[in-house]
């Protein structure tokens, strides 16, 4: 998940660089790249960010659910119950 976010951040920088290039140098190649590749890369980066946040939410929900289904701490810490005393052989 953190790797997904790092890739998303790196792709965002790439998309921003393409867009800034097209604004500062509005000639056919930069403008075409920004409007096609830049858009695609930027959209992919945002989708990855959304996916990473979704994974994180699901993970935190799962952890919370598991913590709720655990037996109370008192029961976990209590000594194990002893069985009936063994009789003579």
């Amino acid at each position: 998940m953190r790797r997904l976010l790092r890739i998303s951040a790196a792709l965002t920088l790439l998309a921003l660089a393409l867009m800034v290039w097209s604004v500062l140098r509005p000639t056919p190649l930069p403008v075409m790249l920004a409007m096609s590749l830049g858009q695609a890369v930027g959209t992919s980066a945002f989708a990855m960010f959304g996916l990473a946040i979704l994974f994180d939410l699901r993970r935190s929900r799962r952890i919370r659910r598991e913590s709720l289904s655990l037996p109370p701490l008192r029961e976990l810490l209590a000594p194990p119950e002893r069985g009936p005393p063994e009789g003579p052989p």
Partner: protein
Amino acid sequence: MPHDPFAWAALAGAALSAPIVIWYLVRRPPLVRGTKIALLLGIGVFPILTAGTGNIAGYEATKTRRFCGSCHVMTPYARDSEDVASPSLSSRHSRNAAFGAENCYACHADYGMFGTVTTKIGGMRHVYEYLTHFRDLSVAEALPRIHLIRPFPNGNCTRCHSTEVPGWQQIGDHAGLVDELRDSAVSCVGGGCHGPAHPFSKVGREEAAP
């Protein structure tokens, strides 16, 4: 530097977004609520601002003469348009404030409901032609080969010159050919009438033709 406010908005969005993204990449903070909000701004909100305004700025830039003249084979056309002393049709139109720096687009664009789309598709074809046929040619080699894919439509002229005003109709050639002019059967920019719009490009063309 750009003069378009959309261009400035795109740069501002990028300037706000980049530090957040770089901070995340360098510092690698834990993914707590604050980090998520910062990343939402850095990867979502500000880049969307940059993309939206940058697209408008890019679209507006494609309409300028500077953009058209940025391919080397188009430089004589752009230079002639900018020359206030030139008597050519393109130069005279560029001196009109309604056309100004967008005079290439104003005359060569398609109009109507899908005009913008068809103009942009035509522009993509120009890029293809440039990359495949004209990129390695000198201007002198390219000029005899540059041509319109179809005859220039009179509708692009009559969009402004309506053909309805008395002054236009009083001219004998106009009055005699009004139907042909409106149907584009006779071109406004034909040799004997108002054109060619880029006369320098026609010099020697007859000799070059097979």
